[in-house]
């Protein structure tokens, strides 16, 4: 079942937490709303569910306008970050709640609860109380409870925020598998990029109440629509440079046309060049423009941090993160056994090649 959100606006006092957000979710899609905390993602979700009233804008479910409907009449399942289970009810009664308030026959309720306990890997826990379950189990009960009345749409607000890292990983994979099985159109809110990219068919980046970009994980990573998205997603270097002859120059380092987008700003424009950690190459070269500061082995990858000579001129506008007068820090990641790593250690001089970068004029409107 599809959903369309149109020009949603929500103001809390002087703060416009949701600022003219519009998007569409196709039937059966699993979409992530990703963005920094406090950016308005949860408010969007709560307005779709009817837990919050929009100041203006519309919500369409299945071609039918629902924003005037009470939450109970929207047939939208909602999973809360802190589970919000009914503490005094057993797991089975929690799951059956949405059926029993609609007077579904008891036998049917029992069958549905049993089926859901099975799907959720909660078999045998139906008689437990929520307090007797682990965090991961509780969240699965909350999910089963939301799915029991067969909602048109499933909304999950930071669903794995309250469980520890290992369980979170497991729940993610499991949510994706579940979605592939039941195909309920779903939207989940997260501030964790890895989570969004790992699970979602499509990701919507929301910041400061605005929808910055909507697209597949690959589109978001490779074709960021705004500087915010480019900087927010992934591990990035932000370098301050100048455009000259179709290249961007940062001190002695330059990125050539092959690595840059075609629509480059005119010559001598000061720009922020955003380069992902895996779009950089380092190799040992004593006449190179940078010095290695640290080499860190992170499991299957190695992270190399270096300082780029003569870059980071504060006169060029707002500096990139950590820029100083001595140079700009840059870092790259390599596979553990990469041949590029030979001779690279703290203090060695290196050559730097930028293989792919995005460029935004400094001070331009986003």
């Amino acid at each position, binding site marked *: 079942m599809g959903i369309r959100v149109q020009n949603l606006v929500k103001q809390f006092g002087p703060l416009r937490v949701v600022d003219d957000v519009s998007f569409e979710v196709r039937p059966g899609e699993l979409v992530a709303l990703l963005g920094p905390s406090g950016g308005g993602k949860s408010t969007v979700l709560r307005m779709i569910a009817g837990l919050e009233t929009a100041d203006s804008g519309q919500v369409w479910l299945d071609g039918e306008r629902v924003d005037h409907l009470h*939450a109970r009449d929207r047939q939208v399942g909602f999973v*809360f970050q802190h589970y*919000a289970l*009914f503490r*005094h009810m057993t797991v089975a009664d929690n799951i059956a709640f949405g059926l029993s308030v609609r007077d579904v026959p008891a036998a049917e309720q029992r069958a549905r609860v049993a089926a859901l306990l099975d799907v959720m890997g909660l078999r045998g826990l139906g008689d437990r109380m929520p307090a007797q379950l682990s965090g991961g189990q509780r969240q699965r009960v909350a999910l089963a409870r939301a799915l029991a009345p067969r909602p048109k749409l499933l909304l999950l607000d930071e669903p794995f925020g309250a469980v520890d890292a290992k369980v979170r990983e497991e729940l993610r994979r499991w949510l994706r598998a579940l979605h592939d099985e039941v195909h309920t159109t779903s939207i989940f809110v997260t501030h964790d990029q890895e989570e969004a990219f790992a699970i979602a068919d499509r990701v919507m980046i929301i910041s400061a109440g605005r929808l910055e970009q909507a697209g597949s994980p690959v589109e978001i990573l490779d074709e960021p629509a705004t500087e915010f998205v480019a900087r927010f997603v992934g591990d990035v270097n932000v370098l301050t440079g100048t455009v000259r002859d179709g290249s961007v120059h940062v001190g002695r380092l330059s990125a050539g046309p092959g690595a840059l987008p075609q629509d480059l700003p005119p010559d001598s424009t000061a720009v922020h060049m955003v380069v992902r950690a895996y779009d950089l190459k380092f190799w040992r070269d004593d006449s190179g423009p940078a010095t290695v500061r640290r080499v860190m082995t992170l499991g299957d990858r190695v992270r190399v941090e270096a300082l780029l000579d003569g870059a980071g001129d504060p006169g060029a506008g707002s500096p990139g993160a950590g820029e100083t007068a001595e140079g700009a820090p840059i870092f790259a990641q390599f596979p553990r056994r990469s041949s590029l790593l030979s001779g690279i250690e703290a203090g060695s001089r290196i050559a730097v090649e930028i293989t792919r970068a995005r460029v935004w004029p400094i001070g331009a409107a986003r």
Partner: protein
Amino acid sequence: MHSARRRRPTGAARVIFVLLCGWLTLLLLVPLAALVVTVARSFSAVVAALTAAEALDALLLSVSVAVACIVLNGIFGVTGALVLIRHRFRARRLLDALVDLPLALSPVMTGLGFLLLYGRSGALRPLLDAAGVQVAFAWPSVLLATLFVTLPFTLREVALVLEEIGDSAEQAAATLGATAWQTFWRVTLPDIRGGLVVGTTLTAARALGEFGAVLVVGGSVANRTQTATTFIHAAIEERQEAAAYGMALLLAATAIGLLFLLQRDRK
């Protein structure tokens, strides 16, 4: 629960413990024991005094008023707490402060206020006379005064719990299709049950023990507006010691019984 982390008492802790026990003995146990001993000494006289019509009527009025307060405060306390905690409106802060007023006001003053309204030359007197209802120096005034002094207990206790549990379970119920009514009975009420029990116990204890307000508005008329507490007062005045001590011990025992019930419920 955390007994493993409990430390062995230090010397200072022991001294404080002994002082505390002495303090409690002096304030609670000695007067209570004196009461018990006195009553035991003249047991048959006490039984006779307490089974007299006057004593029974006073007890009946006290208990009926307490029960009425529990029921009415239960209803208004829960709805009031829901309104105060779950809604944001302009006069909320003012209302919130007003709820505590009965705790701050002296009951005698409260009684006087009621008299100004319902008494011989009270503001509402013409209206009440026209309707043929007597409030002052009749049981309705006793009920009204007791309702006033017990107003905060249930409301406050329930509000505390409501605030603590938050509203996400109620929101979950709404997204699952529950009506406001269903949500209240199946989700909210079981959650606030603990607060309701505490509030009810405090209400009962306070209603049975109220003295100043009911004396002023009711006038302690035997068989009509005399409550258990004003009965004790009258008995002392008339040097009916057996009746006074007997009723006092009965009230004390009831209060202790209520507190024990409360402790059991907390576990």
